[in-house]
C-alpha cells in the first residue's frame, strides 16, 4: 500500500458500501503495485549498461583527458 493510497482509502466513510469500495480499491492498489514492482525487480537489460558505458566513453573523448 502506498502512503497516498492508504490515506485516501482511510478517508472513506465507514458505511458498509464504503467498506466494500475500500476493499476493492485496496485490491486494485495491490495489483497495480504488483505490476509495477514486477518490472522494477526484473534484471536490468544489458542495453542499459552499454548505454551508460557509451556515455562514459563520450565523456572521456569530449571532456577531460584520462591520465
Amino acid at each position, binding site marked *: 500500500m*502506498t*502512503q*497516498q*493510497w492508504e490515506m*485516501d482509502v482511510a478517508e472513506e466513510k465507514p458505511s458498509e458500501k464504503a467498506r466494500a*469500495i475500500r476493499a*476493492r*480499491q485496496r*485490491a*486494485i*492498489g495491490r*495489483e*497495480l*503495485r*504488483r*505490476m*509495477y*514492482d*514486477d*518490472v*522494477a*525487480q*526484473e534484471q*536490468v*537489460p544489458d*542495453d*542499459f549498461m552499454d*548505454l*551508460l558505458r557509451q*556515455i562514459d566513453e563520450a565523456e572521456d573523448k569530449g571532456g*577531460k583527458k*584520462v*591520465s
Partner: protein
Amino acid sequence: MPTSAPSAATQKPENPDFKSELLGLVPFLRAFARSLTGNQEAADDLAQETLVKAWQSRSSFIPGTNLKAWLFTILRNQFYSDRRRAWRQAPWDQDAAERIPGGGEDQVHSAELSDTVRALKHLSDEQREALILVGAGGFSYEDAAAICKCAVGTVKSRVARARKTLIEILDGSDTLNDVSRPAGGDAAREIMAQLDQLSPGRSDQVGGKKRLK
C-alpha cells in the same frame, strides 16, 4: 585523484554520484515506462531515451531535490513527444508485453496478468499515469502533479476517476470479455442446452430403463 577540477563543478555539477543514482533508478524508469506504454520493447526504448536525456540535461538538476521525480518528468515528456510521431502511435497494449519471448519465469508470471492491469488499457493516458504514479509508484499527489505538470486537484480527480472506472470495468467485465475471454453467456447457454437434452433421458432412467412402447 578526482577527475574533475573543483572550478568546473560550480558550472557543471559533475557529481560522481549522479550516474550511480541514475543507474539505481533505472528499474523504476522501466516500470513507469512499461505502465505508460504497456509494451516492453517500447518501454525500454523510452527508458533509454530518458537516460540519455537526463545525462545531457544533468546540469539542470538541482541537487538535493527529488531525482526520481525529475527523471519521471523527463520520461513522461519523452513519451508524449514520441507519441506525436506517427510511428510510435501504438495503442497501450499490456498483452503485447506478455508475448515477448524468452521471458522464462517472468513470462509465466505475466501470463497471470490480472484483470486490473488488463483493464488499464481502457483508461485515458492521463488517468492511467496519475493512477500509476500515486497508486503504484508511491508518489504524493504533489509530486505526481509536478511530474504531470498539472494542479494537485487535477491529479486527485484523475486518480479518483481512474479508480471508479476500473471498478466499473471489473464489475461489468464486458469490455474485457470481448477482448480475451470466451463469452461466458454463450458457454452458459450451451451447458443449459445440454442439460435440457439430457434431462428427459435421465428422468426416464430414474423411472426405470424400460420405456413404454
